[in-house]
C-alpha cells in the first residue's frame, strides 16, 4: 500500500516530548472514525503508527499527536510547516461512539492515551444531546505532563460534562487531584448499568481502569480499550501486532474488556 504525500501545515508543541502536527488533506477530505490511526512516513527514516487526534467532523484537517520516542516518531514530531510526509490510512477499528447512544459515557485517559480519545470526545461533545452523562477522567504523570491541558480546562468549564484530572506525582504548585487515574472512577457520577466506557493509556493502566469500572458495575462488553502493539504494515500482513488471535492493526486497536480480559492478564502474549 503506497503512502500519499501530504504537507504539514501547522505544528504545536504540547509537552516536552510531544508534538501535534496538522496535515492538509490535499484536495480530498480525509474521513476517519474516532480511534483510528494512520501510518506516517518520515522521508528516508521510516514509518510509524500514529493515532488521529483531531475532530472527525473537520475532515479538512488531519491531526496527529506524536511522542518522540524513537527515530521515526522523533523525525515526525519535529516536522515543520511546509514539510511533506507520507500518509497511509486510516486503519483499524475505532471507538464505538454510536453504541453509546442514550447511555452515560465514561472516558478514561492516561498520559498520551488522551490523543486517540480526543476524536471521540469531539464527537460526544458535538452530539451531546444523544448521550446521558459524559465523564472525562484524565491521569498524567505530573502536572507538566498533562496533554491538551488548556482544552481540558475549557471542557471542565462546560456544565454538561464532568471532567477530572489527576496526577501521579504533584509539584508544589499543583492544587488538583493526586493519585492514579483509577481513583477517579470511584468518585465519578454515572449509572454503571447504562454506561459505555472508552479507556486508553498504558496497558497496565487500562487493565486496572477496566477492573475498577467493572467493580463499579459497568458491563465488561461495554468497556472499550485501545491496544498498542508493534504495527508495521497496518493491514494484517506482517504479523508483528498479533495479540493472541487478533491482529491489533485490523481487528483492533479498540476492543472490549470482555474480549481482552484473559489476554491482558497473561504475560508476554
Amino acid at each position: 500500500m503506497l503512502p500519499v504525500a501530504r504537507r504539514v501545515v501547522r505544528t504545536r508543541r504540547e509537552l516536552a516530548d510531544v508534538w501535534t502536527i496538522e496535515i492538509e488533506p490535499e484536495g480530498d477530505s480525509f474521513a476517519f472514525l474516532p480511534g483510528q490511526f494512520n501510518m506516517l512516513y518520515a522521508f528516508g527514516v521510516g514509518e510509524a503508527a500514529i493515532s488521529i487526534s483531531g475532530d472527525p467532523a473537520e475532515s479538512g484537517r488531519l491531526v496527529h499527536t506524536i511522542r518522540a520516542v524513537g527515530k521515526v516518531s522523533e523525525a515526525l514530531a519535529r516536522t515543520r510547516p511546509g514539510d511533506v510526509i507520507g500518509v497511509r490510512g486510516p486503519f483499524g477499528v475505532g471507538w464505538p461512539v454510536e453504541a453509546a447512544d442514550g447511555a452515560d459515557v465514561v472516558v478514561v485517559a492516561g498520559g498520551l492515551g488522551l490523543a486517540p480519545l480526543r476524536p471521540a470526545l469531539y464527537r460526544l461533545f458535538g452530539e451531546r444531546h444523544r448521550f446521558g452523562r459524559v465523564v472525562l477522567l484524565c491521569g498524567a504523570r505530573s502536572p507538566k505532563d498533562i496533554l491538551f491541558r488548556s482544552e481540558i480546562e475549557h471542557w471542565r468549564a462546560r456544565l454538561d460534562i464532568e471532567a477530572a484530572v489527576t496526577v501521579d506525582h504533584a509539584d508544589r504548585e499543583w492544587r488538583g487531584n493526586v493519585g492514579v487515574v483509577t481513583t477517579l472512577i470511584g468518585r465519578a457520577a454515572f449509572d454503571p448499568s447504562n454506561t459505555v466506557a472508552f479507556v486508553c493509556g498504558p496497558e497496565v493502566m487500562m487493565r486496572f481502569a477496566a477492573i475498577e469500572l467493572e467493580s463499579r458495575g459497568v458491563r465488561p462488553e461495554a468497556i472499550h480499550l485501545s491496544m498498542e502493539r508493534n504495527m508495521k504494515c497496518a493491514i494484517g500482513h506482517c504479523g508483528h501486532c498479533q495479540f493472541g488471535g487478533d491482529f491489533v492493526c485490523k481487528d483492533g486497536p479498540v476492543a472490549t474488556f470482555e474480549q481482552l480480559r484473559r489476554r491482558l492478564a497473561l504475560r508476554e502474549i
Partner: protein
Amino acid sequence: MIEGMERIIREHRFFAGLDDETLAFVAGCTRNVRFDAGQYLFHAGEPANEFYLIRHGRVALELPVPGKDAITFQTAGEGDVVGVSWLVPPFRWLHDARATDLVRAIGVDAKCLRRKCDDDHNVGYEMMQRFVPVLVDRLQATRLQVLDVYGTSR
C-alpha cells in the same frame, strides 16, 4: 443534634447501607467539622484520635520530607475517608492531611468508635467491611504509582 448527625452520615458514601441501629450507634461518635484551605486535619506522628469523612473540598495526603517540600501522594475528596491508622495500634497517623481548599467533613471520634467496635463486634465487622476496601484500593493505587506507567516523560 445526634439525629442531625445521623442524617448527615447516612448521606455519606462511606456509610451507605448501614442499618439504622448501627448508624445511631456510630452517630454518637461523630461531629461536624470544617477546615480552611491550608489548615491541617492532622500531622504524622500524632495520636489518631479523629478521622474524617469528606463531604466537601479536597484534602492532600502528604509525607513530610526534611529539607524538601512535602510530597503529596494522594488527594481525597467528597465521599472519601481520610485517616485509617486509627484502626490499628499504635493508633498514630503515618502522614499529614492538609486541606487544599475549604473542607467540610464528618469527624469521627476514633477512641469512641474503637470502644464501640470492641463492645459490639457487629459494629466492628461493619467498620472492617468499609475500611478494608479503602486499604486495598489505596494499596493498589500505590502499586500503580510505583509502576510509573506513563514512562519516559521528563
